[in-house]
């Protein structure tokens, strides 16, 4: 009994920091409609700066002053980012917003390593609050009690700010009614900036609060952001009260989950989130957010299968790819195999994203399931590579049947966050279930069959798979099924009224996409001879997103080009710089802002403009312009 009381109190103390971060995220989303992936980075930055200050100012007042100063400093950083970057992408598709803010996260991670070094930092206890009191025979830090009080206090202050000030009135109006925001005119810009600054301040403050309890690390951004995403999804994006409620629920799940089984808490959290989303898709206290994706889609012509020229070009490219082993050495060929695997992974994501309009932020789940599925079959059943190449994808697909059932009930940002959570849950299971998966040590000794063991043979195998998968996905894209899937993306309302069932179609697409990503996973495992939990990590998912974005997310298979360019350059970067994340992050941000249509998207557009101009030129010579004309 005593233990439960203590766990309960610890849970409440944990909730404080989570609530601060989550309420900031929710506020920002409510007004700007941006899901700020960089929120975890601001939390981390707040912790690092506060660490440096608290080490110097070790007095009771100094501790709190350090937190406030650090948060204000991070808020200034936030304002700079908002004015320079976010203002440009408020009307961009959500995918781009998520990616841009993720890019900032990457930059922040390396910046932190540059400034504070790679080691974990352990901060001082809060001066004057470092003691403990005995609760039913268990020692509870006094600091925890301060946190327990602080959560409701901040909630109260926020409530007052939102309900008793003119500024708060504007914020609430903007959250509830989008047209209202536009009516604000010029003030809108500064309202957005102000809200962003407040949200970032809260996140940074939440980070600082953790110093006396936990080490400061450059991983803390991603671990908090997953939890906070889950919280805002459960509570309802845009709702502060919801964030408060959900922070407590999640913290208590964590506190009590640990008593049952270490590591179960993440699964519990996921389960609660899934149930909430199915019963109340907009969260416990949230409201439905209507946002059309179409308005933001770049303007291109109707999708077409390859014509004669296109098919010829593709055949030529495949032919050259097959000849590659005669040009490259072993190292080059193993890079080329990686590229082929990346192509499979990217095109399977593109099918979901570009055709289906479903932006998955957890595609790594499918790759990881395929890879681990195959590796486990090899390890425990001595399965051959050929058979594993079938079972791996099937395992990924089988999991997707279950996960997809939940995911396709959601749209846009909620879909992105649920898929992200899906991958994170799998990652933590794989990481923690050491007996089965080897945890951090991974599974080793996953080698290909003899006939495919040489680098060249393996390259031809991956090439055959890549060509097969790309063709299969293109074929599916132009099958009636693919048209229905794209129809749902173009206009859900129109689709419903011609009898296309959104959930069924998207569920099937989710499973198909998982199957192919699973194949990429199997090939990945056999190429490396091993598999580690990273394969399921956020960065794997984001790799996929960048490849699609780089190729062109509004193209049928631009990600093939995206995969080649991205994989080759990132392998080169990895071996030539100490701060790859800094570079990668900057590249993402630049891509999103300057080059959102990607390589293939942009070239197609140029080509189309050129053709139209030529056609119009001819038309002008011949008949008079058609009624209506070409827009």
């Amino acid at each position, binding site marked *: 009994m005593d233990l439960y009381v203590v766990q309960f109190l610890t849970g409440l103390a944990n909730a404080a920091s989570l609530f601060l971060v989550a309420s900031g995220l929710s506020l920002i989303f409510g007004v700007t409609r941006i899901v700020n992936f960089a929120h975890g980075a601001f939390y981390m930055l707040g912790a690092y700066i506060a660490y440096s200050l608290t080490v110097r100012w070790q007095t009771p007042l100094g501790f709190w002053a350090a937190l406030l100063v650090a948060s204000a400093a991070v808020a200034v950083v936030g304002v700079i980012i908002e004015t320079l970057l976010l203002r440009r992408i408020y009307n961009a598709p959500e995918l781009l917003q998520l990616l841009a803010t993720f890019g900032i996260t990457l930059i922040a991670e390396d910046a932190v390593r540059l400034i504070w070094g790679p080691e974990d930092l352990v901060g001082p206890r809060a001066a004057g609050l470092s003691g403990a009191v005995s609760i039913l025979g268990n020692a509870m830090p006094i600091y925890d009690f301060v946190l327990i009080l602080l959560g409701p206090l901040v909630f109260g202050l926020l409530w007052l700010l939102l309900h008793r000030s003119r500024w708060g009135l504007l914020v609430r109006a903007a959250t509830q009614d989008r047209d209202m925001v536009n009516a604000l005119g010029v003030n809108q810009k500064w309202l957005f900036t102000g809200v962003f600054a407040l949200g970032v301040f809260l996140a940074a403050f939440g980070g600082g609060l953790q110093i006396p309890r936990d080490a400061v690390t450059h991983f803390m951004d991603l671990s908090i952001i997953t939890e906070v995403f889950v919280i805002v999804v459960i509570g309802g994006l845009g709702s502060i009260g919801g964030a408060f409620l959900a922070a407590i629920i999640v913290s208590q799940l964590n506190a009590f989950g640990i008593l049952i089984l270490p590591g179960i808490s993440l699964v519990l959290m996921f389960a609660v989130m899934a149930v909430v989303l199915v019963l109340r898709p907009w969260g416990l206290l949230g409201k439905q957010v209507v946002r059309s994706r*179409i308005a933001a*889609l770049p*303007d*291109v*012509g*109707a*999708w077409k*299968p390859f014509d004669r020229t296109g098919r010829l070009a593709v055949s030529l490219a495949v032919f050259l790819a097959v000849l590659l082993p005669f040009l490259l050495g072993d190292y080059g060929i193993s890079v080329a195999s990686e590229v082929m695997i990346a192509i499979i992974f990217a095109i399977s994501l593109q099918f979901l994203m570009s055709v289906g309009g479903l932006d998955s932020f957890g595609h790594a789940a499918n790759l990881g399931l395929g890879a681990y599925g195959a590796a486990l079959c090899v390890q425990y059943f001595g399965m051959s590579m050929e058979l594993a190449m079938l079972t791996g994808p099937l395992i990924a697909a089988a999991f997707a049947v279950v996960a997809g059932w939940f995911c396709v009930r959601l749209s846009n940002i909620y879909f992105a966050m649920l898929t992200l959570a899906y991958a994170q849950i799998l990652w933590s299971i794989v990481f923690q279930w050491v007996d089965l998966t080897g945890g951090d040590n991974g599974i080793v000794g996953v080698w290909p069959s003899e006939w495919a063991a040489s680098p060249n043979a393996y390259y031809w195998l991956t090439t055959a798979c890549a060509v097969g998968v790309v063709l299969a996905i293109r074929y*599916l894209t*132009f*099958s*009636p*099924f693919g*048209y*229905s899937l*794209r*129809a749902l*993306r*173009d*206009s859900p*309302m*129109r689709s*419903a*009224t*011609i*009898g*296309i*069932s959104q959930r*069924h*179609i998207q569920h*099937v697409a989710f499973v198909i996409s998982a199957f192919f990503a699973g194949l990429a996973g199997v090939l990945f495992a056999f190429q490396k001879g091993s598999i580690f939990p990273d394969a399921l990590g956020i960065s794997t998912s984001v790799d996929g997103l960048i490849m699609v974005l780089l190729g062109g997310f509004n193209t049928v298979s631009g990600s093939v080009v995206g995969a080649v360019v991205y994989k080759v350059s990132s392998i080169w970067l990895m071996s030539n710089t100490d701060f790859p994340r800094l570079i990668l992050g900057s590249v993402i941000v630049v891509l999103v802002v300057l080059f959102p249509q990607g390589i293939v998207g942009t070239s197609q557009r140029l080509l189309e403009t050129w053709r139209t101009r030529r056609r119009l030129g001819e038309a002008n010579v011949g008949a008079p312009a058609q009624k*209506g*004309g*070409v*827009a």
Partner: protein
Amino acid sequence: MSDALLTVENLSKSYQGVKAVQGVSLAVAPGELLAMIGPNGAGKSSCFNMLNGQIKPDTGRIRICGKDTTGLSPERISRLGVGRTFQVAETFLSMTVRENVQLAIQSARHGTLSLQSFFGNLGRKSAAEADDILDLIGLLGEAGRSCRELPYGDIKRLELAIALAGDPKLLLMDEPAAGMATRERMLLMRLTSRIAKERQLAVLFTEHDMDIVFEHADRIIVLNRGQVIAEGPPVDVRMNADVQAVYLGSGALYKQEH
């Protein structure tokens, strides 16, 4: 009316306390054009959205072809032979005009998740069928063009083509001509009316232009603040004092007389 194709009894819907539709009853017979008119915010679009399953009514019954469809999903209702157009056009912008119609045909014929829907393309047979419909609507010349390139008036016509694609028995047209020029509006409604008579379709439509309403509607139902304030043949409705009161000042009801 027992031979009605669509019967609606006592339909109501509120949004957070706003009574958008209150106790609306109506019926449409095959081959009949029923116009639903009323000022902005009267609840017309809300009625349409309930009829095709987009939103669930708070109370009331909807029967289509004798089947109770209250609370069914839009997909199910569309399979019963209901086509609909939207006040703000909804088409598939990444497809050609022909493909828009083909997909509607395909979906109505075979569903979209049959095994065969994974193989082949939208098909030559449906292409020919789609071209027939496009010809009827006068869009055949644009069949191969990307939907995104069309002027808005043509997109509205394409909506009608899509709605006709599955051989519907009932057409729900919410402001089919909104955003079109007057002449185009007239032509579109004339065409709709002709097709409805030929194919014995039941049509429920809304339209702001009273000339068009009085010319083409067999009957008119007038909504104001969610309630039916008048119903009957055009002559009766035009004389109705309540209706005149609602439209007073706008002069809309009298426009056609000069």
